[in-house]
């Protein structure tokens, strides 16, 4: 297998605490060694023959980004996305590993469905794809899916995607049952009755616009229940898309008490508030909804102190026609893989809320720890999944040029600074913004 010499970049590896200008040698698909960089020096003479040299001067060399939940839509919703396009979008966003949600049709609630996800990922040969298995059959929330069979089929964690498991008895049994596989349950913690019919955050903006709101309490209440059940069962629960101040505070307290709860946040919930709904734009309709500024501040505090240890794109591609309808019938979600890193930079790095090490931890070692996978670090002998980031690259989001099959982004035509420029998976350059010399 070929070798890579990535020279002169700022190597930021949160897992090992490295943040320095260094050269990185990759060989046989693994990180081989890290070398102190000396300016002007040419690559060492003893590099293996045929080593590809990448000049990373001015770039950040990060462990390959990892996304905890992405909807790839295949099978069942091929008009929105297929594995090939979704994984291409992941690479263009700097992601080397994504966990694929189980909300396909049919849902991933059996072994062969999980194996199909992996098969399509192998065929696409873009980024790594780890299936998430359903917690309950057909996401109905009543009977457990064949969790052991799903593990055999490659499922790394369990989730009913955007369908909350409202029956506490079912959730309790699921948390108990998954303990023997040491795999977490990814839950969308919302009280269905408080979410029903809502299209945006409940607050002044919703009142003004006459739109039905989803109160913060919808998430707060379910977060509290999930924490109580995690404590009762000693199971592992991961809360997806945390958006409220009170949820962050409950998770912080629970973690301090040793309860096995983790949480993630999406980049768009860190940047946009409920005021974006004033134009009734279906592209801004997400679930959970965009909240108000005080909630965003609490989310940022949660990221700073590690209460929230991962950022997920929560990629929700929807075909153009599905979003070109009235607000109440339009589906929730945004097509976000290709803008996630840039939105994070805008929301977290530019205002000085997080350091690069903190941000990249939430995109690499943090999600790797939640998934329990040996990835998300540049330590020698780790898989050579690497993302090169140009922190100063100015670009304009052009949804028409997305690698994703869908275009539903509220960031179209917006200018961002910083993005992934090269994505390396298994020691191979799988994607680069510009051709490499």
């Amino acid at each position, binding site marked *: 297998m070929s070798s890579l010499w990535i020279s002169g970049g700022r190597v930021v590896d949160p897992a090992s605490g490295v943040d320095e200008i260094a050269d990185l040698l990759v060989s046989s698909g693994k990180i081989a060694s890290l070398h102190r960089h000396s300016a002007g020096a040419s690559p060492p003479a003893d590099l293996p023959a045929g080593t590809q040299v990448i000049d990373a001067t001015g770039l950040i060399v990060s462990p390959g980004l990892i996304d905890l939940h992405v909807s790839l839509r295949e099978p069942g919703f091929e008009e929105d996305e297929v594995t090939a396009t979704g994984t291409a979008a992941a690479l263009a966003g700097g992601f080397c590993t994504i966990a694929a949600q189980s909300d396909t049709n049919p849902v991933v609630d059996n072994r062969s469905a999980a194996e199909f996800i992996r098969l399509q990922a192998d065929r696409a040969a873009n980024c790594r794809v780890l299936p998430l298995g359903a917690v309950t059959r057909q996401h109905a929330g009543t009977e457990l899916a064949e969790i052991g069979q799903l593990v055999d089929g490659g499922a790394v964690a369990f989730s009913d995607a955007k369908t909350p498991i409202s029956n506490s008895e079912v959730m309790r049994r699921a948390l108990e049952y998954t303990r023997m596989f040491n795999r977490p349950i990814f839950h969308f913690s919302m009280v269905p009755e408080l979410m*029903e*019919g809502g299209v945006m955050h409940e*607050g*002044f903006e*919703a*009142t*003004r*616009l*006459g*739109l*039905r709101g989803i109160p913060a309490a919808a998430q707060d209440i379910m977060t509290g229940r999930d924490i109580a059940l995690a404590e009762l069962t000693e199971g592992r629960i991961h809360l997806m898309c945390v958006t409220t101040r009170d949820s962050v505070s409950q998770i912080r307290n629970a973690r301090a008490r040793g309860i096995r709860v983790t949480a993630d946040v999406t980049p768009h919930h860190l940047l946009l508030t409920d005021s974006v709904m004033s*134009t*009734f734009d279906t592209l801004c309709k997400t679930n959970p909804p965009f909240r108000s500024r005080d909630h965003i501040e609490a989310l940022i505090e949660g990221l700073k102190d590690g209460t929230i240890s991962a950022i997920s794109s929560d990629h929700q591609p929807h075909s153009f*026609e599905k979003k*070109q*309808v*009235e*607000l*109440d*019938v339009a589906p929730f979600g945004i097509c976000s893989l290709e803008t996630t890193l840039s939105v994070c930079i805008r929301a977290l790095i530019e205002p000085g809320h997080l350091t690069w090490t903190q941000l990249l931890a939430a995109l690499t070692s943090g999600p790797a720890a939640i998934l329990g996978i040996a990835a998300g670090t540049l330590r020698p002998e780790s898989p050579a999944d690497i993302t090169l980031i140009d922190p100063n690259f100015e670009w304009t989001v052009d949804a028409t040029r997305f690698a994703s099959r869908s275009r539903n982004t509220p960031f179209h035509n917006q200018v961002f600074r910083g993005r992934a420029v090269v994505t390396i998976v298994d020691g191979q350059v799988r994607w680069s913004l510009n051709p490499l010399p």
Partner: protein
Amino acid sequence: MQLNELPVTGPWGERHLLGLETLSAEQLGTILDLADELRERTENGTRRIELLKGLAVANLFFENSTRTRTSFSLAARRLGADTVDFTASSSSLSKGETFIDTARTIEAMGVDMVICRHRTPGAPHLLADHLRSGVLNAGDGTHEHPTQGLLDIFTIRRHLGRIRGLTVALVGDIRHSRVARSNIHGLLKLGARVIVCGPPTLIPADIRRLGVEVAWNFDEILPEVDCVNLLRVQFERQRGAFFPSIAEYASLFGMNGDRIRRARKDVLVLAPGPINRGVEITPEVADGPHSVILDQVTNGLLIRMACLTLLARERKTPEAGAA
């Protein structure tokens, strides 16, 4: 009479009328003054004035309505326009054609202005983004109903001579009422004091930030108000229980003879209708001397004629310079 011969005294400049929130006090004044002018020239809306001759107006009603649709149709015809009615009670999606495609199809038949009633807030805004025609919001879900707000304000102004300094109570289901929102925006811009009154389940907590006062006790505010606008209980928009029984609602918030006697002696009683007799208002009050409910209906015609006229003046025409 030609469109541009009509004296329009105030500022306008809008291609669409989507809500009162985005209009200035001066623009609101322009509409009210034009409605007064049309009232003079048409003998209270009973005579035709051919300002929109040769234009076509489409009524796109995606939600049931008889009163508003009839009022708009009549207003357009009194102005000499051709009208076409399109009614679809269910979501366009269920029929396989999107709402926008339906509107584009109707527009392609040569329509100049579109009047849209829809159950979803923002639906007319979506049309305004996709159509060449002027769009007039005839009620979008629980968001706004600008012509209803205008006709309520016009009725108050005709009876009391002013808006500034008046205290107006909007009573009832504020949460689900587009009429309430349009009234609030219009009345506040024109200098009125607005009190919203109803059970806490029907008044969103944040409504104060719009600049209104909130009261849960109708009897306490009764002596202070110059006008009471009794909003219809929107049984069809309520999900679940917002109050225990109609009888309890009527006893707490219904306008009856007893309350009329305790109100100011010249209090004006409005109701956007259709009224639920015996719920928000007793027949004694509805048909009594304080009620201006039927005036509201007549004024609605004038307001809608004024709005159509203003939008027609700003419309985009395929052949530049025409009009």
